[in-house]
């Protein structure tokens, strides 16, 4: 299987700007309108039979009849041909400078139609979003309508949901923060519907980043959902990235924020104390106490080992984790498999030989350390490379 450049098929931002729809008609505009009108009439639509020579008038009239088409039982290929015919007429109207049709079409597509023709509606919308005369605002509107249709009819693979691509598009279209929030919410719902919870979590982060000071008040719900999802996720142990998000740091003072803090900075004792004090709250957010205990034990283990290093004995660890020694070994193995620490167990000495430990918070200090290590590598490599070059020239 060849590798594909980029995870999904995508047009570079440049090509999106240049992509154009090409249509070549074989009949005149008025004939095309006439054909459509006769067809719509045959389906029982309420349109006038005559065509004038004025395209906008005819087109407005035809638009009235499209609802009938969308609600009818016409088969897919026929529907596609007819709607594309409408699409080309719309593009011709836009060419003569008229506006507002795309909005009208979007709302019409949202409100009418059945499961069978949902896919076709999405096709038409995508074609229009590539048309060069469609404004950025209209493109955003089309995208929102597409997401709504995809969510409603569960056509998740027919709309762009890759977050990186979507943010690029939203940047190109200069979408405001409020608009972004709506779009990210829709995408998150689509992911949840199709059981892609990891991707939904990523969207939530992007969503939270779109809030800024003036609409921070409305972010509270979303922030809480995000924190609870992260705490619930059995594979996430390190939560400090959440604090960097404004809406979450805005939760300061709430019980949930304190809980998050415990998971990031504190140890098992603090958690148990918190639990005893706020049992109702814990029940209301639906986190399993057992799960939380397990996570906290692993995290406390990590911190302890980080502080004590090779001097960590089984006794100390067992005390900190409030466990028997037998269960302690299992926890150490768990920690190693979760990649929180890399170590070997010395059973004779009842000690842990530590190679490295992940830090629960990652700050600038840690980044500096990385920088130093990388600089060393770079210098060494440079030396070796110089030597190799001289050798290869003489060979």
């Amino acid at each position: 299987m060849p590798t594909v450049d980029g995870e999904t098929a995508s047009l570079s931002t440049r090509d999106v700007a240049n992509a154009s729809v090409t249509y070549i008609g074989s009949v005149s505009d008025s004939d095309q309108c006439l054909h459509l009108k006769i067809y719509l009439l045959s389906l029982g639509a309420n349109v006038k039979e005559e065509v004038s020579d004025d395209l906008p008038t005819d087109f407005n009239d035809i638009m009235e009849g499209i609802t009938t088409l969308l609600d009818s039982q016409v088969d897919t290929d026929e529907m596609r041909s007819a709607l594309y015919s409408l699409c080309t007429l719309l593009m011709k109207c836009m060419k003569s400078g008229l506006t507002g049709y795309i909005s009208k079409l979007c709302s019409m597509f949202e409100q009418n139609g059945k499961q069978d023709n949902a896919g076709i509606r999405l096709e038409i919308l995508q074609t229009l979003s590539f048309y060069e005369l469609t404004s950025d605002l209209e493109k955003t509107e089309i995208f929102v309508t597409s997401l709504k249709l995809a969510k409603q009819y569960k056509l998740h693979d027919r709309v762009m949901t890759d977050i990186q691509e979507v943010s690029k598009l939203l940047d190109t279209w200069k979408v405001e923060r409020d608009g972004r929030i709506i779009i990210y919410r829709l995408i998150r719902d689509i992911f949840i519907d199709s059981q892609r919870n990891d991707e939904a979590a990523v969207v939530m982060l992007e969503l939270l980043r779109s809030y800024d000071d003036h609409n921070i008040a409305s972010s509270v719900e979303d922030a809480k959902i995000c924190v609870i999802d992260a705490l619930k996720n059995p594979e996430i142990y390190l939560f400090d990235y959440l604090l960097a998000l404004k809406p979450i740091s805005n939760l300061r003072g709430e019980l949930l924020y304190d809980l998050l803090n415990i998971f990031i900075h504190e140890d098992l004792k603090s958690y148990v104390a918190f639990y005893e004090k706020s049992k109702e709250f814990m029940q209301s957010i639906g986190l399993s106490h057992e799960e939380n205990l397990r996570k906290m034990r692993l995290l406390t283990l990590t911190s302890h080992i980080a502080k004590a290093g090779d001097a960590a004995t089984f006794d100390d660890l067992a005390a900190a984790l409030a466990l028997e020694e037998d269960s302690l070994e299992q926890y150490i193995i768990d920690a190693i498999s979760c990649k929180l620490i890399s170590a070997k167990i010395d059973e004779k000495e009842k000690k842990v030989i530590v190679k490295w430990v992940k830090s629960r918070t990652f700050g600038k200090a840690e980044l500096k350390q990385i920088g130093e290590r990388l600089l060393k590598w770079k210098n060494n490599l440079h030396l070796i490379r110089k030597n190799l070059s001289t050798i290869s020239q003489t060979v």
Partner: protein
Amino acid sequence: MAVSSPLQLSVVIHPVVVLTICDSYERRNEDIEKIHGTLLGKVEKERIEIRNCFIDDNPTASGKKKFNLEEFQRLFDLHQRVYPNEVIVGRFSTGDQIDDTALAMQALFSRVIESSYVAFPIHLLVDTNLTDSHMGIQASVYHRYGVPGNDNGSIFTPIRYAMGYYPEEMSASQLFQRNLAIGGIAPVHNDMQHVIATSTKIDELLDEVLKYVEDVTAGNTPFDSKIGRSLSDAIMAVPQIDQSVFKDMMNNSTQDLLMVTYLGSLVRTQLALAEKLNTIL
């Protein structure tokens, strides 16, 4: 066909197709402005891979030569003998717009070629005129529009695509790109130079990362703990072996390699000697 809508398609193009198109474009007859041809490739459910192309005969100066379907069939049969799995997936043309000729050919092909191969034929437009100083490559899907009984025209709607590479193609393409920097013509490496070239690449990557770290420390770039963690994970992934174990490993490998070198030189000496002896006798 499992694909009911072109929105589900993912189109992958191999670079050899575009290079062939560019090359044929440069060889076209003097009075022609565009060239046309057929795209071939493989279709697997919703993934269309465009792997090769045929060029149509150039029309002669005296007028357009009619497209000969029989000749095309013969050519396709020839092709199938080498690549039995490839089918026709669409057409291409050059220039900045899809014109009538391209449309006529696309329509012809959609009628004549079996639609069981690919439900939605692709049209590739390669902008060899370089408008906006950019070779725009656009893939579209071809539809006819109209009402039953009255066909009103054709529409080409853009579709997203990606470039796809086999590992060998990736190395070749990277080599070509590297050559661009040194003037476009370059010899092929031997093994050791290749390792040196890769270490140069590693150096560049390290530079980029170091720059990021410096920026963040100076405060120019916002600090993102996720990136920091991925960096630290990457560094931790370097297996940390004890000094003594590593030294042993190095020594063993060095010994093996030296021995092999010795054997190689021995054999070569033997060959030279044998030749001399044979000729003396």
